[in-house]
């Protein structure tokens, strides 16, 4: 049984990174379920509750989305733009987690309404620190807005 309202959606095309993030969450002792999708289309399908992800019981709206920018098919920025235009889910907290430090990417992500922009650290210890900060701030302190399915 997956707890409604505590799912974390990880949009990440690299299986290595998915594995490392999962391990970091696990090391940090965070129990929120993580659903990983590997491209933008899938992310949209999940958030829209269509296709494979039609079952909201099984695939509830995430409490937090970690979004990579460089994705196959539909980029992270497109996903972000799409979400911010859909009334039901537009307030959903989305944190960009990418390896790009490109200024354009950073500015456009904030322009499109990213709640935070984080760069994937190379060292695992740093990643662990990042995940702990995420949990401490976004999963604990942060007051969540009302998000309903479209």
């Amino acid at each position, binding site marked *: 049984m997956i707890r409604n309202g505590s799912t974390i959606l990880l949009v990440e095309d690299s299986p*290595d990174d998915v594995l490392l993030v999962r391990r970091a969450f696990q090391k940090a002792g965070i129990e929120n379920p993580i659903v990983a999708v590997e491209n933008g289309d899938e992310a949209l399908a999940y958030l829209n509750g269509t296709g494979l992800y039609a079952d909201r019981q099984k695939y509830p709206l995430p409490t937090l989305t970690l979004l990579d920018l460089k994705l196959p098919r539909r980029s992270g920025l497109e996903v972000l733009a799409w979400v911010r235009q859909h009334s039901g889910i537009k307030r959903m907290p989305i944190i960009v987690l990418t*390896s*790009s*430090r490109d*200024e354009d990417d950073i500015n456009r992500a904030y322009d499109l309404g990213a709640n935070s922009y984080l760069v994937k650290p*190379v060292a*695992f210890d740093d990643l662990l620190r990042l995940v702990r900060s995420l949990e401490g701030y976004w999963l604990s302190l942060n007051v969540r807005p009302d998000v309903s399915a479209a």
Partner: protein
Amino acid sequence: MRALWSGLSIQRKNSVLIGGLVLVVAATYSSAAYDGMRRTMLATAGERLRSVTDQLAGLLQNSSKQLITLTRTTAADTGVRAFLRSPGTRTRERATAALRRIADQTKQVAEVRLWDAHRRRVFNVVLNGPGAGELADTTVLLGASGPDSGAIGRFRAVGDSVLFPVAVLVVDRGGGRLLGYMTEWRRVNSTPRARDQTNRLIGSKSTLYMGNLAGDVWTDLTRAVPRPPVDVQEAHTLQRYERAGVGTMLVAASPVAGTPWAVVVEFPRSEVLAPARTFLRRLALIAPGLLLVGLFGAWLLSRGITAPLSRLTGAAEAIAAGDYSRRIELDRRDELGRLEQAFTTMAANVREAQRKLEDKVRERTVELEDRNEELEAFGYTISHDLRAPLRAMFGFSQALLEDYGDRLDDKGREYAQRVVTGAQSMDLLIRDLLAYSRVSRAELKLGRVDLSRVLREATTQLQVEVRSRGARVRVEEPLPAVLGHEATLGQVVANLLSNGIKFVPPDRTPELRIRAELREGKAGGGDAGGGTDGGWHLRLWVEDNGIGIATEHHERIFRVFERLHSTEAYPGTGIGLAIVRKGMERMGGRAGVESRPGEGSRFWIELPAAEQTHDQERQYDSAG
């Protein structure tokens, strides 16, 4: 002189040349004309003088013959004959009466003398004015030896008057018997008015003289005068002499045939040349007029040439200054017109070439920008794509160590550890390379940068390293503001501080001293806009107590990937100081080092000191 000439404008030169030419031509023509005219006039005058003199001589010859005839008529008077035939008181009275009659007719006869056949004087009567007095007649009596002939004697001076004798024979009527001789002494006594009229007839202010060929007595027809100082026997030759108060006189003499006389006509040379002089004066008056006309012509001509030339020059200067829009319309078909056409064509060609060049430059710039973008995209890809596998290597080898370390032996753990270390240094390398390429390429807008703040931020950034080595960083405040790019300067300073802490022997506590020094002079030539000459520059010193650097390496260490030590001893990518040098150059500054092995190093960077006015320009580029 030459410099003066070449400095003159063409217009002036033309005027001077043409004016000079006009003057030379006028002077040459005037002098030639005057000279020719003078010669002609002198020749004509000479000719006229000679012919006048000859004519006068002829006239005098005729009148002397007439005089003889006249005297012979008198001698034929019955009273005179009677007296000579039988001299007596009665006949004397008759003869005297007859002679007085003649004297009444001719006032010129001063005295008449009668001689017997043996040339003894038997009678004389003074008729008009003073007579000949004691003057002798003998010579002239000998001359009058034929029955039809008479003789004219030489002039004689009596007081102011000049007399001459006319001698004839007195013969019996019908027969040829010589009764005696008669001499008439005639006076040369024209009135001054008559003399002047004669002179005027000859013209040219001439003066007529008559006198004896022998030269003793001369008259100007009114009275005795000194002989003209010329050779009166030299007929038909133009002679000249200087007359006091008048100047050069032209003289011609001619003997009077049948008499012992000569006639002389003279006139002043100046009088002859007067028309030539007038002509010359007129020419001299005309010359300035000609000069003025010439100068005006020269001015017009020069203006016709130089005005279009100066317009061409103006257009050429405009083109030289980059203004291709200047057009010249001369509307001429001469050489200047062709020059204008050639110029217009050239300007069009230059403009076309310039336009092509600009197009090419623009094209190239676009190309370069494309390349640059590609390069940046490449850098971005490197940072992104290389880091992903790096994260995997790093993450999973660390996971291996953490999760399965207890199942590996020492060697296995060491290998895994080496994978971690390798990934770490590769991460560092990528980071530094990206930083270096960003510093090299990013557009830097310079502004006022507060060095204290830069130092504070750099120290904060390095706090892990500072803490791990227990380093002491002493900043000697206050640090003034400089003209630079804050982010780049922060990167530069951070690299210098990091080096200062890093290159210290492990057993020594790193001590860094940072101080500023204001210097006057050149800050160096970077390729960014800030390379200013002169003025004040700020040198920031970063002094450490590290291992030091040998002099021969002082330049090498600022190049990319240059390392003096193994990564084992002093880890690093060999890019840090290259970033320092490149960053300073991009900001128009310099970087250098003073160091000797074992004595620590004193790195310095130099930038123009900021003035207060730069406050407003403070703009920061977002890069970095």
